[in-house]
């Protein structure tokens, strides 16, 4: 059996509101799977159902080939969890907290020393949880998820609210878990996080899956790995540049005062000379021209017309 997780037609309703609205997902063993979407897309609800903390309204959910309705105890021993912003026992030290959590597992647990070393918390072992920084607290939360040596680790928005340095440190730890072959399910609304950590990504919006694939596949789907943003004087409509050689797609972006165009491009060395020639032909001056690699942000924007960061 290849699937660590199987979701078919998952629905979760709160009254009239469908937080999850017919979701299908498969997570393979050993991959790091990202669930990406804006706030309120149903990511946390989905993950909490997978963690056995919430019950689906309808649909099929299997974790490690087991069901929460019949094999809950068995499942809890085999999964690890880091909730979004876990608050722990304030006046317990890091090491004490790890030992308490270890006492919950009757089977094999990872040695506390190993976890402290892996999460770079050795120096903080005697520190009260309330005195940890945000990044240290999140690393402790991940360590607690790993105590029972789980087959699947769920991380719900692990780096939300962290400073860039702490985020990068946590990314390194998660990347190390993935390279050891642990199945990781990660929710995030950060594109760079998903791109950097995940083997495959599902983009969800309004409780539905709107895209699925590797980061590269998803970026390719918007018609090019590069984006050129160009502002011209006088302003040009998208049609003026859409048929330039190497340009796969052109659309208007920017405000009324400063209309700009965004062009999807496969090969910049082909498209850029042709683009400059077309501008000369139309007697338009490029006042700004930016070329960059497309990101998952662009994928989301292309598919929904909204930015992920519109919180």
């Amino acid at each position, binding site marked *: 059996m290849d699937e660590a997780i199987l979701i078919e037609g998952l629905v979760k309703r709160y009254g009239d509101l469908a937080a999850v609205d017919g979701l299908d997902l498969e997570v393979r063993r050993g991959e790091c799977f990202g669930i990406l979407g804006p706030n309120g897309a149903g990511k946390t609800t989905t993950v909490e159902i997978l963690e056995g*903390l919430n019950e689906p309204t309808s649909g099929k959910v299997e974790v490690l080939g087991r069901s929460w309705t019949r094999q809950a105890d068995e499942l809890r*021993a085999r999964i690890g969890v880091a*909730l979004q912003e876990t608050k722990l*026992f*304030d*006046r*317990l030290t890091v090491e*004490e907290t790890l030992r*308490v959590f270890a006492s*919950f597992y009757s089977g094999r647990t990872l040695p506390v020393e190993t976890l402290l070393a892996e999460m770079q918390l050795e120096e903080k072992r005697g520190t009260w949880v309330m005195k940890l920084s945000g990044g240290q607290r999140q690393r402790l939360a991940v360590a607690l998820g790993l105590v029972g040596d789980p087959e699947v680790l769920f991380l719900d928005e692990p780096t939300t609210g962290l400073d860039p340095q702490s985020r990068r440190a946590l990314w390194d730890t998660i990347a190390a878990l993935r390279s050891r072959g642990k199945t990781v399910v990660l929710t995030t609304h950060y594109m760079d996080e998903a791109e950097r950590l995940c083997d495959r990504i599902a983009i969800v919006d309004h409780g539905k899956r709107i895209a699925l694939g590797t980061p590269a596949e998803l970026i390719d789907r918007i018609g090019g790995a590069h984006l050129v943003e160009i502002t011209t004087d006088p302003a040009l409509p998208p049609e003026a540049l859409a048929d330039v050689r190497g340009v796969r797609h052109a659309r208007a972006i920017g405000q009324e005062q400063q209309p700009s165009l965004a062009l999807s491009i496969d090969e910049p060395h082909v498209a850029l000379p042709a683009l400059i020639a077309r501008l000369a032909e139309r007697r338009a001056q490029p006042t700004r021209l930016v070329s960059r690699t497309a990101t998952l942000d662009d994928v989301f924007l292309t598919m929904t017309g909204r930015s992920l960061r519109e919180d």
Partner: protein
Amino acid sequence: MSTKSLWALSGVRLKLFFREPGSMFWTFGFPLLVTVALGVAFRNQGQSQTPVAVVDGPGAAQVVAALAGQRGVAARVVDGAEATRELRTGEVVLAVQAGAPGAPLVFKYDPSRPEAQAARRQVDDLLQIHAGRHDTVPTRDETAVAQGGRYVDWLVPGLLGLQLLNGAMWGAAFNIVNARQRKLLKRLAATPMRRAHYLLSYRVSGLVFVPLQTFVLFAFARLTFGVVIQGSALAVLGLAFLGSWAFAGLGLLCASRAQNSETANGLINLVTLPMMVFSGVFFSSARFPSILQPAIRLLPLTAFNEAVRHVVNDGASIFSQGFPLAVLVAWTVVTSFLAVRLFRWT
């Protein structure tokens, strides 16, 4: 079945308690302060001197001479206006006015004040005896207060009850709701932790807190006010455990569904405030109308106070306290059962 998580969680309870300065104060310091404050305010003051005003006039010197050196009365001469003023303000409760020889003595006092009537009788007796009255029946006073009969003796068992109730409510119940609000309960529920162990850890840690609280309060009351446990100290400890379980059940019930500390706050006050008034912590519940008495006796704090007072003050056996014991057991069983049924982890 492994119990290691039960011991680990109980250890957490103890560590968190002793690392929180606030909980230490409210559990140990505060009841001692209340004991001192109320013990001092309502202490038995021994025989006091009743101040008496003697109105200046022809016979005043004779009256003062008659009362001089008598225990319990302090007489001094003032003019008529001053006597009236002191009577009005309560500085004296009795003024004596002696007229010309042969004229009757006049006692001025407010008859609605019991101490004024007592002073009038006492002064009258002293003056009559001084003038040569002979009492025909010999009498003798025994003024020692019966052991366990003072207010402070009565107060301390009630304070133990209040302390255990507050511990179960503000210590345990509030703590659980807080853990739910902070999603700590949810995090724990995502582990294979046996959920009963989390709730039981509060009872296990109580095995340390309850004897400690009982000992500290009674040791302090004994050292400062000479409060003595007339009955069995073991019986008091047993009652303290039973009481703490009844209160814990009630606390757990309050904590079973509340989503945030504001709701918990309201629920806890709703439960504890009526008991503080009706269950005879600071004054006897016998003062309430008899129609309320059956209901008052069914409150767990009333039952606890009643049983502990009988053991501490009257030296009664715990086995003679069938009714209050039954009330406490019933509260323990019913509230714990309901609380576990209703409890929400998320």
